[in-house]
């Protein structure tokens, strides 16, 4: 579970045109706006989250290769985009993740064992925790954006200060649901934060083929809501901008669209072959923008992190993952008749008969 800290002073965002994304840390770890940085504890917390979700992503690759995980959409390289946004939420807030946002869900508090079980297609992974407002990863594109608007509207009607945050990719911003959701959210002034992770590719289609728009954040202009471009490989910038939008939403200021400009270093899924559609030249320069390395350099330079503490963090993260893997290994497979569970609160006569059929034929 995340715990929001005191928001740092809101820096001035550049506006209009094809502006450079908002940034607090240069790729070499230098602070470009030192006064706007989150406090040291928050910087360390964000670092820990990024290390933790990268470990999950790397181990997921190995587990997939050895047949111990299903098809998995990796997010390696996008840790700052996912952590900086999800870590800006509080425990009462909603998170609507796409299939590539495992890292965001882990950051919001989805347990590792359950997340592994989800990508193993086990029912134990699909039963979302009762005490956490996170939805299962959405497979269709952009369809959860209107849901986030509705959840945000419900929180507003109930008089809470909770917000809803939803993810989308650059490809998803071509879908009608994206536009309808932004329009509804603006028209109804709901506490919703829309994250558009522009990672350069919708499977094989680059953003420049997807749309003529260069600055996707400016799409917010059409709906009368603020749109902000942020360096999605700079976790501090991503966090500060999202915190600002979350605070604004809590205070009744309405929705915000945040475009995190990042890059999908890895394939679309572990079953994908990106060499068919992109070259080494496309990837050039992105490795040096590694969000974890960037913050690590900064933290070491500031004396907030030591090599020893970093090594201890590695051991802690590995131990957590291995314990979770063991727990997930212990989950039993579903029985055949479980495919008919949870269709309705009470099964219809038709479902009762179909259950009897499965039980007779499958011997369960």
């Amino acid at each position, binding site marked *: 579970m995340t715990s929001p800290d005191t928001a740092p002073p809101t820096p001035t965002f550049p506006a209009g045109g094809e502006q450079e994304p908002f940034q607090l840390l240069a790729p070499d770890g230098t602070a470009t706006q030192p006064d706007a940085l989150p406090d040291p504890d928050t910087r360390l917390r964000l670092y820990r989250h990024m290390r933790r979700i990268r470990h999950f992503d790397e181990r997921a690759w190995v587990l997939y290769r050895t047949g111990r995980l299903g098809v998995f959409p990796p997010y390696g390289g996008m840790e700052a985009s996912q952590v900086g946004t999800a870590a800006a939420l509080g425990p009462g807030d909603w998170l609507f993740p796409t299939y590539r946002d495992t890292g965001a869900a882990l950051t919001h508090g989805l347990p590792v064992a359950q997340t592994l079980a989800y990508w193993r297609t086990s029912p134990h992974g699909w039963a979302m925790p009762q005490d956490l407002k996170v939805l299962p990863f959405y497979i269709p594109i952009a369809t959860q954006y*209107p849901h986030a*608007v509705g959840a945000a509207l419900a929180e507003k009607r109930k008089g809470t200060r909770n917000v809803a945050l939803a993810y989308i990719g650059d490809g998803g911003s071509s879908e009608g649901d994206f536009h309808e959701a932004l329009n509804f959210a603006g028209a109804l002034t709901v506490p919703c934060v829309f994250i558009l992770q522009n990672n350069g590719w919708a499977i094989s289609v680059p953003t420049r083929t997807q749309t003529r728009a260069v600055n996707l954040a400016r799409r917010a202009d059409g709906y009368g809501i603020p749109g902000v471009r942020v360096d999605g490989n700079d976790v501090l910038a991503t966090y500060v901008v999202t915190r600002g939008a979350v605070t604004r939403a809590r205070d009744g200021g309405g929705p915000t669209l945040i475009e995190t400009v990042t890059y999908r270093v890895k394939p679309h899924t572990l079953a994908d072959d990106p060499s068919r559609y992109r070259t080494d030249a496309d990837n050039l320069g992105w490795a040096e923008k590694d969000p974890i390395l960037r913050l690590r350099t900064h933290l070491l330079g500031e004396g907030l992190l030591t090599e020893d503490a970093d090594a201890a963090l590695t051991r802690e993260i590995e131990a957590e993952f291995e314990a979770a893997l063991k727990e997930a290994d212990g989950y039993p497979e579903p029985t055949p008749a479980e495919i008919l569970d949870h269709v309705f609160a009470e099964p219809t*006569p038709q479902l009762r008969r179909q259950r009897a059929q499965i039980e007779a034929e499958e011997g369960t």
Partner: protein
Amino acid sequence: MTATATPTKTMTMVAAINDALALALEADETVHVFGEDVGVMGGVFRATDGLQARFGAERVFDTPLAEAGIVGMGIGMGLAGLKPVAEIQFAGFLYPALDQVLSHLGRYRHRTRGRYHLPMVIRAPYGGGVHTPEQHADSPEAILAHTPGVKVVIPSTPADAKGLLLAAIQDPDPVFFLEAIKLYRSVKGEVPEGHYTVPLGQARVVTQGDDVTVICYGGMVEVAQKAAEAARPHGIGVEVIDLRTLVPLDTETVLASVRKTGRAVVVSEAPRTNGFHSEISATIAEEAIDFLRAPIRRVTGFDAPYPPFTSVEDVYRPSPVRVARAIREVMGY
């Protein structure tokens, strides 16, 4: 409805629906009614007339004109603990929202293994018979009934409309509530005052008869009744069954009747191929074929878009004459 004299009022179906919405809004503050033109205007058919004035613009409100947005936002409202009651202006305008229906509406309980559920009602006028412009008269119930996790309710009387709608709003699962445009103001009936429900999943035997069973719902019930009346002087006893809900489907009432009469005619105004009438026909064939004395007949629309040509609309939409013809055919087989 109990035997003790419940006070009733004569009202149209649209008035009964308005009454049900008002009672639901009054009883449960999580109920929210929204859609295009439902607020100030009270809906194009006035089903939500006066509700915004009475319950406020936070609970009865107009949305931007976007059906996927209406259904999608309602899904989020339901997830987060409200009871959304959305209106789609015409069932033929539902199609932009079908992704939300097919991809999400019926799946939340299943895809979260019960963690979340969707107590959402989507109301939509459907069907022909009143000379609407093109795309206003569609009957898409089979698409909806083919979607797992979604219930489908289609009333044919004012009293049923009120009781079924109150049951739908109380239901913990998503319910499509289709209202036959033809019946909104053309039929009046006695409607009990106050709150009552008609349970989902129970068909209604409209008329009893021993010779042939006519299975229908919504706007086709009065058509079937007229055909049954026409058959009576010829000594043919027609049992008319109003399904009331397609999901859950009351197969027991249908099968019991067909086992008694040995003949079945299924009526709907939807296109013929893959209609819900086909599901009824298949169920009868699977479960009661040994009782049949004649092939099952379907009386339906055609595999063409509902015609916007006023003078020939009645060719498409089943008439009492076409239903009577089917009754004669199964009697003479």
